[in-house]
Structure formats: C-alpha cells, structure tokens
C-alpha cells in the first residue's frame, strides 16, 4: 500500500527549474532514500512533501490526501502525523533540550506534566542523551544536536518521518552512529520514511529502496543492489565517487 505518492512535481525559483516532473511512491512502513548531488533539489523535494514549499505544478498525496493547495489549517493537521529532521537540526536556541522536546507536546497535545516529562526522558534515553536534558543547544556538539533533533521529531510519535541530510557535517564515526540510530528507531516505530542524502554509507544502513535525483527528475528507483547494474552514466559516476 502506497502512503506517499508524488506525481509530476515541478518547482522553480526565480524562473530556474529545480524539480522538472518528479514521480515517486513510498510504501507504508518502508524507508526510501533519495540520493543526488548537492543542489540536485533533494531538500526542495522534502520541503515540498511537508508543505514548506509550494510547487509550481504536480501533486503530492499523503495517505490519500492531496496536500498541494491544501488550506493551512488542514495542512497543520497532516503535519501532526509527520516528523522532520532538519539538516542543521534547527533546535530552538532560546530553549533548553527539555523545552525543545516539550514544545510540540505542550502546544498540540493536552498532556499532563508527568506524562510529558516521562516522554521527554524516554526519547532522550532512546537517542542516548539522557544527561543533556537541561543543556542549551549552544552547549551541544553537531552529533548531539542531530540526536536531539531526532528525539524532538520522534516525540510526537509520527507515522511519517522525513530526514534532510541526517549525516551531513558529521565525522564518519558519528555519521555511522546516527545512521544506526535512525535504522534502529525505524524498526522500533515502524514508520514510513524518506531520507535525502548524498552519503552512500548512510543509505546502505537505512534504505529499503533508493531513488536517484538528477537534473530535477528521478533517474533511478529501486533497491540498492539493483542500482549497481543500472546503465546510466550519472548513476555509475555517482556510485564510483561515493
């Protein structure tokens, strides 16, 4: 069963086309990794899926609901079923780690203080940062920020999770740890996920299937093993240099 369906998605900025007719389907409970070079439009695609960017044309359907052109209040309802890990984590720098994790729970869900604290502590344990609960974002390293960003996205128990370059800017060891963490959380929560990255090591750990974005279109879609036998110059070049 397909949970996310993208049809003929086109987006441009100041007349410069970025996405030129992207077609992609994501099955329920699966993880699709979108690969591509920097500037290929991967983040634009991800932001379009969650409604942060409005495409020029095309359709994005999530669980049968068309989100392109959706009223903002309805869009907020759809977003409450989704989580998003930003490339730079995008932690609220005026709040502590606890404040960051409680932010959505306090404002969206009528949870009592005890339940909220329990969920915050549980999420921090899952990402291995229980001790950081009272730290401010400025006191955290890049890897820790990613983990807290992940905990913040997961605390609302989303059905769909979107990851924007989860390992970019991290050293290989920390990148591997984050990839393992994502993979283990995927298994625990059985979420439908889309990750965009150019990190093949991350893709190998978390992907059920991959899609390659080049010049605004998906030039390959399938499993990672099949990708190595594709007769496409760009895919071959990408794999050779990754």
């Amino acid at each position, binding site marked *: 069963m397909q949970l996310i369906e993208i049809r003929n998605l086109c987006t441009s900025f100041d007349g410069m086309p970025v996405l030129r007719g992207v077609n992609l389907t994501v099955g329920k409970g699966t993880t699709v990794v979108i690969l591509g070079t920097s500037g290929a439009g991967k983040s634009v695609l991800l932001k379009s899926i969650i409604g942060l960017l409005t495409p020029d044309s095309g359709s994005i359907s999530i669980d049968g609901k068309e989100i392109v052109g959706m009223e903002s209040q309805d869009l907020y309802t759809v977003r409450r079923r989704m989580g998003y890990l*930003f490339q730079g984590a995008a*932690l609220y*720098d*005026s709040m502590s780690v606890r404040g960051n994790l409680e932010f959505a729970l306090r404002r*969206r869900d009528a949870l009592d203080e005890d339940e909220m604290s329990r969920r915050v502590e549980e999420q921090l344990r899952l990402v291995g940062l229980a001790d950081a609960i009272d730290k401010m974002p400025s006191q955290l390293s890049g890897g820790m920020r990613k983990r807290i960003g992940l905990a913040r996205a997961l605390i609302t128990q989303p059905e769909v999770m979107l990851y924007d370059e989860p390992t970019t800017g991290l050293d290989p060891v920390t990148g591997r740890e984050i990839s393992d963490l994502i993979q283990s959380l995927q298994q625990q929560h059985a979420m439908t996920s889309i990750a965009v990255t150019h990190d093949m090591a991350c893709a190998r750990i978390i992907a059920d299937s991959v899609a390659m974005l080049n010049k605004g279109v998906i030039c390959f879609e399938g499993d990672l093993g099949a990708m190595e036998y594709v007769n496409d110059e760009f895919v071959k070049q990408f794999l050779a240099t990754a």
Partner: protein
Amino acid sequence: MMRDILSNPKADCMRFIAQVGSTASFARECVLGMFRLPHDTGELFRQVDELGARSLPVVGTTGLVTGLILAIQSRPVLARFGAESYVPAMVSISVVRELGPILTALMVAGRVGSGMSAELGSMRVTEQIDAIEVSGIDSFRFLVVTRVLACGLLLPLLTGIVNVLAILGAYIAAAADMHMSWQLYFHRAVYSLWLRDVIPAILKTIVFGFIIGVIGCHQGYTATGGTSGVGRASTSAVVIASLLLLFTDMILGKVIVLVCN
C-alpha cells in the same frame, strides 16, 4: 553612490510598492490573528516581560531627562514674557500630548523593534520557524501575533511611566531654578491637563505599539540572505518603524486636534 541608488528607478519603485503591499498584508494577518483565541499565554507573558521590564530603564531615563531639559530650556523663554509660572503646565501638556508618546515609541522601536526583528530573522535563517511549522503549530500566531499584542498592550503603560517621570524631572529643575514647592508644581502640572489631552494620547500609543510590532516582526519573519540578511532586517525595522511612527504621529496629531478641539 547616488548613481547606484537611482540607476533603476522603475525597479526601485516596484520593490517599494511590493514591500508596502507585503507589510499591509502582514498587518492585516496580525489583526485577524489577534481575534483568533486562545493565544499562547506563556509566549505572550515572555514577550510582555521582554518588552516591559527590560525596556523600563531606557524609556524611564529618557522620560526623566526629557522633562528636566524641557523645564531648564523653557523657563528662560517663558520668563521673557513674564510667564515663568506656566512651566509646569507647559511641560505636562507637551509631554502628555506629544513628547511622551512619540519618544517612548521611538525608544521602544530602537530597542524592541530591532530585537524582535533580529530574533525572528535569526530563527528564519536557521530554519527554527520551519521547525515550528512542521510540528503542526502556526508559527505566525505563536511568534508574531503574541509579539504585536505585547507591543500594543505595553506601549500605553510605558508611555504613562515616561510621562510621570518627565513631569518629575521637570519638577527637579523647577525646584532648583525657581524654588517652586512640590504642591504648587503638582497643582499647576496636573490641573492644567484635560481628559481630551490624555485619552487621545493613550489611544495613539496603542497604534504606535502595533506599528512597532508589525514592522519589527515583518522584517524578521521575512528575512532572507543568511546573517547579513538578519542585520539588514534589524536595521530596516528601526528605520521603517521610526519614519512610520513620525508620519503616523503627524496624521493622528492633526486628527486629534480636529476631533477634540
């Protein structure tokens, strides 16, 4: 430099019109948002604290010094016409009707307007506003409406404090130069004020608060271009708000005179 500014007047005009349209649309959304309840009371109180408590030292000092200077400068002039005894009345009327509201608004625009713009601009370029949006929370209502409300609510209060301190400052000068007693000074300062001096001035400060909030938030919320964009937004917030405050004050001043006198 001048050649650069005037190199493409048509494009500059279009940009200016687009900016005015964008600000007007933003202001309209703010007004609509204010009537959509409930508001985030935690964020509203945080903004009230930020705007009120932390602005008090700077606006209070401005009020005290303004009153002091006004009395020192006006006494010799009024003395030439034998009207020295009108110093308290002149200070209280000019401060309550005009100087208190506009000076408070300009000081708050400088301190709070630029701060709001820098904070929201920084949140925009580091994707924190996007993070609020993707968590299913209306970032405009949470960040913008609460700030504009706080400005509109607190500016009348801050202006009242500035007025009191300016009249007090003028008393210090009057007591030192003219040896006027507190009772006499107070009687002349307060009893020369009419309700038509006080009420329109208070209403005017609500409009000033709204302008500071809307301009500060609009510049920050729509900031682009990384950290330099945040700096530009912060500077623009102060410049645009100050000019708009002076222009609005001129129009409202005329309207008040027409309606109340």
